[in-house]
């Protein structure tokens, strides 16, 4: 089964861990071509929200719709359309860059895997280091490789948890360009970040999160002011 969608919608999504409410009554819609940043202090629920959208976590209440599908109805076919890059980079340090990409390309059932691997190595600007083990890479190189690992199967929905962490200015520029290009190709991009300055040029909207809720939704131009109002301190 092949599925596709151009919109995701979260309706009154909550996630509780015992008595603790990690996420409470969150509703949000994201359209194809849009880049949405989840911003907020530690413990605001950003990573939990991303984990629920990625289908790795089940909401205690509420629903996530991927077009006309849910995680339960889409299952493996839906996962084929999701790309996830966590705070940890999800690469095997003992394998080379090429072996990592090849492994995930096979796992994600990518057609013409070898060509996609070469393309991904080019996009990560790691062609000359393709056969070096990842443990010998700098944080920036790993981050670029991890992003291409997450995108190896051309996902429709791209989920990134703190993608700017540890990147220097040049690498952050490359990442911003890549995210804009993904949105330009019709992807839905949702990312959580603390790096407010680095996220500015790339986002279309910001969902400002506090205590497991979306405190405010703001557009690119006025999200900093909205953050100050919602969180109670300026950026």
């Amino acid at each position, binding site marked *: 089964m092949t599925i596709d969608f151009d919109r995701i919608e979260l309706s009154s999504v909550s996630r509780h861990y015992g008595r603790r409410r990690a996420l409470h009554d969150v509703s949000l819609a994201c359209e194809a071509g849009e880049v949405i940043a989840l911003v907020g202090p530690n413990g605001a629920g950003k990573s939990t929200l991303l984990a629920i959208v*990625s*289908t*790795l*976590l*089940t909401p205690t209440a509420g629903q996530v719709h991927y077009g006309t599908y849910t995680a339960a109805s889409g299952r*493996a*076919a839906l*996962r*084929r359309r*999701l790309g*996830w890059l*966590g*705070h*940890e*980079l*999800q*690469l*095997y*340090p*003992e*394998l080379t860059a090429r*072996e990592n990409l090849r*492994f*995930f390309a*096979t*796992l*994600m*059932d990518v057609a013409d895997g070898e060509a996609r691997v070469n393309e991904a190595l080019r996009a990560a600007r790691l062609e000359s280091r393709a056969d070096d*083990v990842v443990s010998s890479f700098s944080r920036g190189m790993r981050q670029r490789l991890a992003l291409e*690992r997450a995108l190896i199967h051309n996902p429709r929905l791209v989920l990134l948890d703190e993608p700017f962490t540890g990147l220097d200015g040049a690498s952050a520029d490359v990442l911003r360009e890549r995210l804009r290009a993904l949105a330009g190709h019709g992807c839905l991009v949702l990312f959580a970040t603390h790096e407010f300055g680095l996220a500015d040029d790339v986002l279309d909207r910001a969902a400002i999160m506090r205590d497991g809720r979306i405190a405010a939704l703001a557009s690119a131009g006025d999200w900093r002011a909205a953050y100050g109002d919602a969180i109670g301190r300026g950026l």
Partner: protein
Amino acid sequence: MFFRTAWTVFRKDVTIEIRSRETLATTIFFALSVVVVFAFALVRDGRLVTDAAAGILWIAIAFSGTLALGRTFERERYTDTLRALLLAPADRPAIYVGKLLGILAVIFVAECLLVPLVALLFDTALLARPFHLAALLVSGTVGFAAVGTLFAAMLVRAQSRDVLLPVLLYPMTIPVIIAGVRGTAALMQPPPDEPMAIFWLTLLTSFDAVFLTLALWTFEPLMTD
């Protein structure tokens, strides 16, 4: 897709193991240490306690297997790659099967060294019926690792996973260990008691079928949250 995913995960684990030798080296070292310690501890008046060799062989397999189980999933935890595996568009039990095959490969290599060492140190007729012994070891190891792989995956995010794994695993796999010990001891009798060994082997195969079915059935719901 199921078997290709399982094979891809298995091949990845083998490649990493060949390159790092981390799990294999610690598993083998630990298994051999257990046997050597028992070999010194259980000698009475120049003779060994009857059937001790069979028990020691299976204790070494269980202890070193637990070590291998913990290490294999620790690798997936610290790189957070388990999430990436679970997001693959394959049936999630295929991931389980791939990890299980990797763990079995490590334990089988350890057993290839353990068996001759036990036979040598305990001066037993352990290799009198090599095919029967191999069948007992394979079926016992599959049963032990089937449960262990499930528990190790389930506990990968638990803070006290190192303690919880043996606490959960040993009570569940006691029937496998007992059947393995009794079957192996039957083979060491002079002459080897083949019907008894086959009885225990049949029991082990039944355990394998039950444990594998339960593990494949419960892996997806257990890993979703």
